[in-house]
Each structure stands twice: as structure tokens, then as C-alpha cells.
């Protein structure tokens, strides 16, 4: 296994993250590296582990409290539960996109983390992606390895059956 060194994966996660928050009527604005939020403001993390023949790793969604409060459909439920569910839904979107590239992964159940100064290891190949969302911040990164010899395709494969889209319902 080795670390992926292309931008495709980060772009895919970037798009999925924006789509997810748009689905909950919250606009996200990408920030540059110089606009990075203070790390001590990121209070909650949802982590989704995944694995497959071609790649394995974890997706991390860290937020301040405001985006959670603005998107949580149940004001009474815990923010920890909600950040886990958001991470789960983000990973579902990422998985659907990966399926179109011929990459099949299995998902774990989400884990929630609370803490201070939540931060990925310095020196990783790509920085976390940060968005302004309401009066707060959303930060997302994917930490993974690719199987030796495997390269992520840059365009969807022709012969792959499309996954069921988010929000879609099928009755049999």
C-alpha cells in the first residue's frame, strides 16, 4: 500500500462535501490555506473507516458547532451523533463516486471524536480542505493508501452500473 499522490481524490471529497451541506441548505465557501481556521475551534469529528482491494483508510469530517446546529434536523439530538451521521453520509457520497471509477470499498460505522486542536499530521501530501459554513468552519480530509500498482482512473469507467443517487428512492 502507498499514499495517493494525485489531486483526484481530494477533488472528489471536496465536491461531495459541498453537495452534502447544500443538501442541508447550508452554503459552504472554500477557504485558502491562509484562511485556515484556528484548530482549537474544531471541536467535533466524525470518522469513517473504509477498506477494499484497491484502497483503504479513513475519511474525517471536523466542524465547529455552528454548521452542526444549522444542519441538524433534530434540535434535541446530540451533536456527536449528528457529526457521525454527516460523516457517514459524506462517505456514502464518496463511495458512490469511487464506484463510478471502478473502486469498490466497504464502509465501517462512524466514530465520533471530541477534542481540542484536532489536526491531521503535518507533512501529509495534501492539506485538509476547509470551508466557511455559516459562522463556523467545516474541515474534511481523507487519509488513505492505495494498493501497490493501482492508479485511480481520472474519468468514470464506461461499463460500471450507476449507483442509486442520494435522495433517490426505489420501490421493488
Amino acid at each position, binding site marked *: 500500500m502507498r499514499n495517493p499522490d494525485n489531486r483526484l481524490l481530494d477533488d472528489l471529497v471536496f465536491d461531495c462535501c459541498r453537495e*452534502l451541506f447544500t*443538501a*442541508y441548505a447550508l452554503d459552504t465557501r472554500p477557504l485558502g490555506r491562509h484562511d485556515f481556521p484556528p484548530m482549537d475551534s474544531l471541536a467535533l469529528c466524525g470518522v469513517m473507516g473504509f477498506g477494499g482491494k484497491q484502497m483503504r483508510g479513513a475519511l474525517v469530517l471536523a466542524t465547529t458547532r455552528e454548521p452542526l446546529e444549522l444542519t*441538524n*434536523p*433534530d434540535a*434535541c*439530538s*446530540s451533536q456527536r*451523533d*449528528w457529526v*457521525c*451521521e454527516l460523516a*457517514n*453520509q459524506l*462517505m*456514502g*457520497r464518496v*463511495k*458512490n463516486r469511487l*464506484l463510478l471509477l471502478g473502486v*469498490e470499498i466497504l*464502509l*465501517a*460505522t462512524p466514530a465520533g471524536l471530541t477534542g481540542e486542536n484536532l489536526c491531521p499530521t503535518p507533512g501529509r501530501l495534501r492539506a485538509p480542505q476547509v470551508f466557511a459554513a455559516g459562522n463556523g468552519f467545516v474541515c474534511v480530509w481523507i487519509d488513505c493508501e492505495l494498493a501497490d500498482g493501482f492508479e485511480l482512473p481520472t474519468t468514470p469507467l464506461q461499463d460500471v*452500473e*450507476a*449507483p*442509486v*443517487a*442520494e*435522495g*433517490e*428512492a*426505489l*420501490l*421493488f
Partner: protein
Amino acid sequence: MDKKILIVDDSATVRQQVRAALSSAGFEVVEAADGVEGLEAITERDDLAAVVCDVNMPRMGGLEMLELVKSRGKLPALPVLMLTTEGQPALVKKAKAVGAKGWMVKPFKGELLVAGIRKLTSV
């Protein structure tokens, strides 16, 4: 009497979201937090009109639960709608083969869920 719907999901927020949507449409909702609790509820109760079930859950996932429900002879009398973040066609086919009656990918719209449950529980 209101029809009873069982929601099986490890997220309390999703359970509450489903409860709010179905309750406002006149359904009664009971909850289970994973496949083990869901299987217990389905086995012990005979008043359920339908089940809404997540796929990836701790202890026991929704598809495993569905297989066990089927092996206990509860299907096809009890319609099961899968509500999940998964959209993988292979999983949808597996659920259909095991006896699920529907598949919905989160995030969901309440009215779509209600419409699906109404259709599945209509006689």
C-alpha cells in the same frame, strides 16, 4: 388504529427524523438502534406494518438482519424499506433478493419516505 412502523438505525438523529416524518403522516413509530434490536422487535411483535432499516450498523447490519427475518418466515408479509447512505447496485440487488421492498439513499425527504411507506403498507 395507527399503523406501526419500526425504524432500525444506529443514529438517534435519523431515528428522530424518521419518527417526525412518519408521525406527522399518522403512523406510530417504534425504534431499534441496530440489527440485533431490530430482529428482537420484529420477532417479538406482531403489530408492525413495515420496517425502515439502515444497512451499516454496529453489532448487526440491516442486510444480515433482513436475511434472519426472512429465515424466520416474517417476509414477505412485513415490507422492509432500506434507508441508507449506500447506493451500490450490488447491495441493492442483494437486498431485493433477500426480500426488501424498497431502497432509499440518505439524505431523505420526509414526504418521499411517507409516500414509500404508504405504498408499502396499503392493502
